[in-house]
């Protein structure tokens, strides 16, 4: 990693450069506005962006998700936790239909998730996802990873897509790595590129599937900081994580899952201090006292 003083300088320089570019490019301008949006005081909006109603999912005969009911409002930050195998990853993977559910409804931004390809296309443009194992494309540079979606899905001209990508790489503080391949970066840097790649599609909802679980302890912070900054811009976020500090600091609501079921839904203060369910208490005691 670069020493802090040097990286700050390059970031500033790059920021100036992209700002100049942004003035010329209408799309990049939109991104810039998003970036400078006022910090949200903490109250989510009233518009429901995700509505999950009586949703069930099976893997063959195994009932993974059982009667899930969940509403997410615009700008809300939700942390989902629970023991492994509880179905939390499967739940968020259902929201952009990497997994198909078998019963019940999922409605994202007024579009119902069905096997209809048109709906799928709309939803995937609107919903970004960050994976535990980054899943960057190893044969493409960092910049190409970021411009792929805008160019091929949003049909954006290449120069515009690159300006946009630089804007977001700047925001996750690694514009100087744009020309490198993912294999040359540290885990934390790779995950930040993955976040930038998702943001380049300018989604309204971001899903995070254990984004820090594959990282060394010293790199967890840089990724969490990036996510906190993103939360401050008012992005709707669903985060599966074991980082309870992050949940406490950022979440509007914490959801605890066990055996495919939502066991408890609470605001972070009550979730950590007065959990209502015994299973939650057990889980918290196991992860907090070691």
């Amino acid at each position, binding site marked *: 990693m670069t020493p802090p003083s040097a990286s700050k300088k390059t970031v500033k320089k790059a920021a100036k450069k992209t700002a100049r570019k942004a003035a010329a490019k209408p799309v990049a301008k939109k991104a810039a506005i998003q970036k400078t949006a006022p910090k949200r005081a903490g109250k989510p909006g009233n518009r429901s962006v995700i509505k999950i109603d009586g949703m069930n999912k099976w893997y063959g005969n195994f009932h993974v998700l059982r009667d899930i009911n969940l509403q997410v409002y615009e700008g809300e930050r939700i942390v989902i936790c629970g023991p492994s195998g509880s179905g939390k990853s499967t739940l968020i993977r259902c929201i*952009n239909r*990497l997994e198909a559910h078998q019963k019940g409804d999922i409605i994202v931004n007024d579009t119902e998730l069905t096997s209809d390809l048109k709906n799928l296309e709309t939803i*995937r*443009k609107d919903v970004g*996802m960050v994976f535990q194992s980054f899943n*960057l494309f190893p044969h493409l540079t960092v910049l190409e990873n970021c411009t792929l*979606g805008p160019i091929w899905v949003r049909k954006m001209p290449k120069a515009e897509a690159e300006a946009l990508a630089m804007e977001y790489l700047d925001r996750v503080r690694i514009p100087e790595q744009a020309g490198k391949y993912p294999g040359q970066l540290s885990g934390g840097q790779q995950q930040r590129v993955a976040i930038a790649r998702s943001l380049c599609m300018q989604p309204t909802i971001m899903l995070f599937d254990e984004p820090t679980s594959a990282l060394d302890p010293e790199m967890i912070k840089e990724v969490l900081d990036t996510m906190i900054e993103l939360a401050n811009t008012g992005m709707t976020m669903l985060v599966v994580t074991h980082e309870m500090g992050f949940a406490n600091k950022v979440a509007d609501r914490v959801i605890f899952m066990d055996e495919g079921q939502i066991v408890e839904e609470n605001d972070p203060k009550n979730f950590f201090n007065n959990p209502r369910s015994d299973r939650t208490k057990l889980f918290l005691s196991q992860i907090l006292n070691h």
Partner: protein
Amino acid sequence: MASSPSQNARGYVATASLPALPPPVGTTGPVGWLRQNLFYNLTNSVLTLVIVWLLWLLVSSSSGWFVFDAVAQAGSKQECLKIDSGACWAVIGKRIEQFMFGFYPEAERWRPLVCFFLLFAAIGPLLVPSFPARRLMLWFSAFYPVLTAVLLLGGVFGLPPVKTALFGGFMLTLIVGVTGIAASLPLGILLALGRQSRLLAVRTLSIMFIEFMRGVPLITLLFVASTMLNYFLPPGTHFDLLLRVLIMVTFFSAAYVAEVIRGGLQAIPAGQYEAAQAIGLDYWQTTRLITLPQALKISIPGIVNTFIGLYKDTTLVIVIGLLDPLGIGRAALADSNWNGLSNEIYLFVALFFFVSCFAMSRYSLWLEKRLATEHR
């Protein structure tokens, strides 16, 4: 002075960072290389000397026959023997044109020669990304097969027509080999994708094709091409034998290429597909931009292996009467002037194949290196 951590049980603190020092003398550069690779220890040194000695024996005993006692020019084997005791390379010199062109009419031999030299201009931009004016040259590559067909077959633009039965020698090897390679790669990719398709009909057809082609010897397919196909075609239709061979060789090699590429596709982690889907790419975009480039890269050694096999298998066309270099060699051996010179003739043909295949092998290594982006 400063105590090392092991000496001091009460703890240790580094007071300054240690500077980077140059490596000890004799561990880098040519001397270091010799030590590391040839004289690492006693066993290693002895083995090196023994091998050098064996190499010397081989070279000193064979160089006489190959070079110093060899005869380059003579009219027949008898004349060769009168001049010297080594190899009679004269037969190659006398027959070189046949080895190159088969029985292609002498006055028209400039046509295959032009095709041969243009071949480099056509495959260059496909193989080397930094080729000058690549975009433009790729159009030429696309046009090259038509150009070659016109030049070799003639019958238009005042070029006298030449029958494919007269094609032979290295020219025939190159026609069958290059066409087979160029056509079987795209077909193999489609078959590999087809075999993994969710559409049952596409998948079944791909599997049937691959398993049938792989399950039958190439010689059988060539016989089918030369004889049985006539029973299926309406009477009176003319379907050139060389064209049939080209199709069969392509199908045969495509089945192998498909399986190699399928192996590559299966090595791509599921996360790559998921990330591509999450961005919103559709099936063809994901395949073209994400999975196929990575799968092809992994498959390079296997693909080139298949192509080298195909290239050498082109000699099998001899069984259906086409005159590949081995056929021309046989014709030379049947000549009473050159009777019994099989060593010289087969060594020469072997050299031709070795040069071509070694070039392919080197190219694949270069390509692998160029495409290596992970863990650099």
